[in-house]
C-alpha cells in the first residue's frame, strides 16, 4: 500500500496544477498583508474603535499579527475549496480522461487499494494546502504587525492571552483541515462518477454555494435541514476561541465531519469498484 501511495504522490506533486493554489495564496496573502500595512490597518482600527470605544478603553497592540491571522482564517475558508477541488477532482476523473486506467487497473491490484491510495494523497494535499495557508497568514501577519493578545469579537468580546494562541491556532487549523477534508472527499466522490475533471470541481462548488445559501436564510424549512449539511460545521474551528471552549460541541463536530468524509470515501469506493472503464 505504501508504494501505491508513493506513486500517487509522484503523480500528484509533479503536476503543475497542484501548485496553482499555493501560487494563488502565495500571491494574495502577501498582497493583503502589504495592503494592511500600507494603510488598510487604519480602517480596521476605525471600525474597531467605533464599535468599542464607548464602552472600553483599548490599549496595547490590538491589531496585531494574531488578530489578522484570525481575520484571514475567517475570510479564506470559503475560497480554499476552489483550489482543493482542482486536485481532488482530477484524482479519478483525470485518469479516466487520460485513459491511464487501461494500464492501472489491468494489474493484480484491487481497485479499492488504488482508490484508497488516491484518497490518502488527496487528504495529504488538502492538509498541506491548509497548513501552508495557515503558516503563511499567521507568519506574515506576525512579521508585519507583531504579537500581542488576541481580541475576539464573537458572542461578546474576549481577550485571549498570547501564550495560549499558538496552541489554539494549531487546534483551529486542525479543525479547518478536517472541514476541508470533507470538501476534498466530496469532490473525490464526484470524480469517481465521471471522466471529465471539470465536472467534479463545478459540482462540489455548486453543493457548497447552495448549502451556504440554505444555512444563511432564516426560513424554518432551510433551518431544519441545516444539521444535515456539512457546511454547517465548517466554522467548528472558531469554537476553540470561545470561553469556555465547548469541547463537547467540538467533539461532536469532529465526529460529524469525519462521518461525512468517510461516507463520501466509501461511496466513491463502492461506485468505482463496479464501474465499467470505457475510456
Amino acid at each position: 500500500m505504501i508504494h501505491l501511495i508513493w506513486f500517487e504522490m509522484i503523480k500528484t506533486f509533479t503536476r503543475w496544477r497542484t501548485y496553482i493554489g499555493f501560487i494563488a495564496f502565495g500571491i494574495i496573502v502577501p498582497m493583503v498583508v502589504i495592503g494592511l500595512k500600507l494603510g488598510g490597518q487604519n480602517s480596521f482600527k476605525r471600525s474597531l474603535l467605533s464599535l468599542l470605544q464607548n464602552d472600553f478603553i483599548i490599549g496595547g497592540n490590538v491589531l496585531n499579527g494574531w488578530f489578522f491571522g484570525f481575520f484571514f482564517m475567517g475570510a479564506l475558508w470559503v475560497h480554499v475549496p476552489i483550489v482543493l477541488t482542482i486536485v481532488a477532482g482530477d484524482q479519478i476523473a483525470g485518469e479516466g480522461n487520460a485513459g491511464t486506467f487501461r494500464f492501472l487497473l489491468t494489474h493484480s491490484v484491487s481497485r479499492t487499494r488504488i482508490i484508497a491510495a488516491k484518497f490518502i494523497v488527496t487528504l495529504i494535499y488538502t492538509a498541506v494546502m491548509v497548513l501552508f495557508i495557515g503558516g503563511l497568514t499567521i507568519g506574515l501577519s506576525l512579521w508585519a504587525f507583531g504579537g500581542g493578545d488576541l481580541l475576539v469579537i464573537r458572542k461578546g468580546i474576549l481577550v485571549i492571552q498570547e501564550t495560549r494562541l499558538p496552541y489554539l491556532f494549531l487546534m483551529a487549523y486542525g479543525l479547518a483541515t478536517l472541514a476541508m477534508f470533507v470538501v476534498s472527499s466530496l469532490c473525490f466522490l464526484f470524480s469517481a462518477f465521471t471522466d471529465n475533471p471539470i465536472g467534479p470541481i463545478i459540482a462540489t462548488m455548486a453543493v457548497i454555494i447552495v448549502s451556504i445559501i440554505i444555512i444563511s436564510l432564516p426560513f424554518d424549512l432551510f433551518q431544519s435541514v441545516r444539521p444535515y449539511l456539512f457546511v454547517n460545521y465548517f466554522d467548528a474551528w472558531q469554537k476553540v476561541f470561545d470561553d469556555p471552549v465547548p469541547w463537547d460541541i467540538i467533539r461532536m463536530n469532529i465526529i460529524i465531519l469525519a462521518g461525512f468524509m468517510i461516507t463520501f470515501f466509501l461511496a466513491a469506493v463502492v461506485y468505482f469498484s463496479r464501474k465499467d472503464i470505457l475510456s
Partner: protein
Amino acid sequence: MTDIILRTINLTKRYKNRLAVDHLNIEVRRGEIFGFLGPNGAGKSTTIRMILHLIFPTEGDVEIFGASMKEAGHRALERVGAVVEKPAFYGHLSALRNMEILGGLQKPVTRPRIMNYLERVGLTDRASDPVKTYSHGMNQRLGLALILLKEPQLIILDEPTTGLDPQGMKEVRELILELSRERGVTVLLSSHLLYEVEMIATQMAIIHHGKLRVGGSVQDLLKKGPSEVLIKTDRPAEAMQFLKTNESYRSARIHSDGGINVELDQDRIPELNRQLVNAGFNVNALVPQRSLENYFLNLIEGHEGADNP
C-alpha cells in the same frame, strides 16, 4: 494442469438495449497466438475489457489460468500483460517514471530492469523525456516495454499496430512472434487488420455483432471455400483465351491491373503453371489470392444479410 490459458464462458455485455457481446465462448491454449478478429464495433474491445476486468459482464464469466474472474477478480490478472487500444501514460512524467509506476504496481521494479526493456524497444535515448513529447509509435513501443517488464505468460494486445508506420508494424509482429517462440508466451491479438492476423496468428476467432461467427486454426480457415490465383503473363489477352478453353479455368477474368484472376484451389497452382509454360507463355507470377480478408468479408457480408433480413 489445463492447457487452456483463457476461456470465456457465455460472456455477455448488454448496454441498455444494445447487446455488445452475446454469449461469447472462446478458448485460448498455451503457446498460441490467437487472432481475435472483427470489424469496428463488433465487440472486440468490449470482450477484451471484460477479460481484463475493466468492464463487468452482464452475464457469463472469464477464466484465466483456471481462475474465475467472478471469484478471483483482479487477482486473475497476475500473469497477464495487456495493452488496450491506444496506450495512455502520465504525459508529464518520463518513460522511466511511467514504467516505475505502472510496472511496479504489483512489485517494485529496478531501474536497470526498466532500462533493459526500454532498450529492447529502442527508447533508451528518450527514457528521461516527458511522455507527452512522444509520437504515437513511441507510445506503442513504451506500452510493449511495460508489458515485457511484467514478464507475463499471457499477453493481450488490442489493435497493437494501429497508427504505426510499416517498419513499426513489422517490429511489433516480430516481437510477438519472438515472445511466442522463445518464451512460450500465449498471445491474444485483437485486430481488424486481417493480414496482420493471417501473418502471425495460429488460431483465430471472428466476432461480428457481438457473436462468435467462426473459430479455428488459421490454416484450416484459409482452406475453406474457393480461392483465387492472380496470373501475371507477358500476353494476358492470349493467355485468357487459352484458359477459357479449359473447363477448369472457366472462371478466369481479366484483372484491372492487367493480370488474370481465376478461381482455383491452391494445390493446383503448379499444374496451372505447367500448362501455361507448355503453351508458350512466360509466367511472371502466380499469386494466391485466397486470404482471410476474402474469407472475412464473405463471412461478414453473409451475416449482414442474415442479421438484417
